[in-house]
């Protein structure tokens, strides 16, 4: 860390994020290995297809728990659109697609982030429900079970495509932001560019923790 850096996430937030992310990626990998015969070779990493099925199913439980915690933690900040300011941001696509002189300010998370969050929440829940029924198909009517598979595939389609966009926007697409998910500290200049309103709010409430300055409030951010 160095001067000019501010704390943007706490460790609890980062643990939930990585629990969700790693379980999700492991599910994508093992799922791909079962969905496509071409990717059956992935199963060598897990001791064969039969074992990989168990890795997939039980990782699903980890994903489910992480998803519930992520919903509880971020829903109020990222799950609800605030009008009209979010609409203004959407109209200029947040300045991500063409040059915009002044991107409208939004709350802590911009509508793009919210849309991605909601996609993960909605399709994450779809994956958990369909996956559970696919795990115990004998307990459900066959007409229902049959449609769980395409729904599970649809969820994979959305989440896997989302992964690439998320990876890009969280790393090289927005330089300086990836540290939010590792150390939890970010350059205040970058943060102010991306989340001006949030910075102002934190400063106003005296919750902004800057490197080298005395902590004013240890519980900024999230209350589990």
């Amino acid at each position: 860390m160095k001067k000019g850096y501010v704390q943007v996430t706490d460790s609890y937030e980062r643990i939930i994020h990585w629990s969700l992310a790693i379980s999700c990626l492991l599910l994508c990998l093992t799922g791909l290995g079962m969905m496509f015969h071409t990717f059956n070779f992935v199963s060598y990493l897990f001791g064969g297809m039969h074992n990989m099925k168990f890795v997939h199913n039980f990782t699903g439980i980890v994903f489910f728990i992480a998803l519930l915690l992520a919903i509880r933690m971020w829903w109020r900040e990222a799950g609800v659109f605030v009008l009209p300011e979010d609409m203004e941001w959407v109209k200029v696509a947040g300045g991500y697609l063409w040059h915009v002189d002044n991107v409208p300010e939004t709350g802590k998370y911009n509508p793009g982030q919210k849309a991605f969050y909601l996609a993960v929440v909605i399709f994450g829940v779809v994956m958990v429900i369909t996956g559970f029924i696919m795990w115990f198909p004998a307990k459900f009517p066959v007409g229902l079970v049959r449609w769980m598979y395409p729904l599970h595939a649809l969820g994979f389609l959305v989440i896997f495509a989302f992964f690439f966009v998320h990876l890009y926007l969280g790393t090289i697409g927005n330089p300086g932001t990836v540290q939010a998910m590792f150390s939890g500290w970010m350059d205040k200049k970058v943060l102010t560019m991306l989340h001006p309103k949030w910075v102002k709010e934190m400063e106003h409430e005296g919750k902004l923790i800057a490197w080298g300055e005395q902590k004013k409030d240890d519980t900024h951010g999230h209350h589990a």
Partner: protein
Amino acid sequence: MSKPELVKLIDTTLCTACRGCQVACKQWNEMPGLRTKQFGSYQNPPDLQWNTWTLIRFQEYEDAQGNFDWIFRKDGCMHCTDAACVKVCPSGSLYYTPMKTVGLDHDKCIGCKECVAACPFHIPKYDERTDKVYKCDLCYTRIRESLAPACVKSCPTGALTIGNKDEMIKKAYARVAQLGGDANVYGDKFVGGTHVLYVLKHKPEVYEELPASPKVPLSVIVWKDLLKPLSLVAAGAAAAGVFLHYITHGPKTPGPEGQDKKGEE
């Protein structure tokens, strides 16, 4: 030498329900007998099981005129040309044999039960103990050596016969013409044609547990032919999209060197 495409013909009008086929099937495939339930019928066990790959179904039927018929139907895998089970199997455990029947390699089966839901005839059965699925493979170990399947071998009345596809279809239609009435051939007109054909005395709707017009479920088609390839297309498009974004629009950076000047306040 290429193997001929085989079809097994089940002429239900010749079946006497001796159940020799049921026993011969268990014997050849080394499937154990399990405790069963008497439910008021000679049909035993009540349904196909992981250890029972073929079953004579007993059905008491009375038509509109009050004519009674005791129907015997040998149930089991139909060996579809367009098999939903093969389409959904993630491990390649279910496969088409050179004789175009549907084989099942138990070493590869992972017990996901996707075939159980997909099969329009409700044939594959799951065994919790081995965590694998079982079904008739038309005695693959016999037919590949040009021997008749155990059930056909055991049949004393000629209700079960096997042979080249074209000949068996011809034989089935000749028998139906001979029988007249509602008699019909069941199996050659759906799921690409099955490799097990029935000669039925009554319309297919009459028979219990026999779908009148079976097809690969729509859910399987949406899943395997549409969403499965589309998922990779979407991932590729997303990856290409962000790369294009990076080399055209570029990343967001603060300060004068950045493309976006916002955030200077």
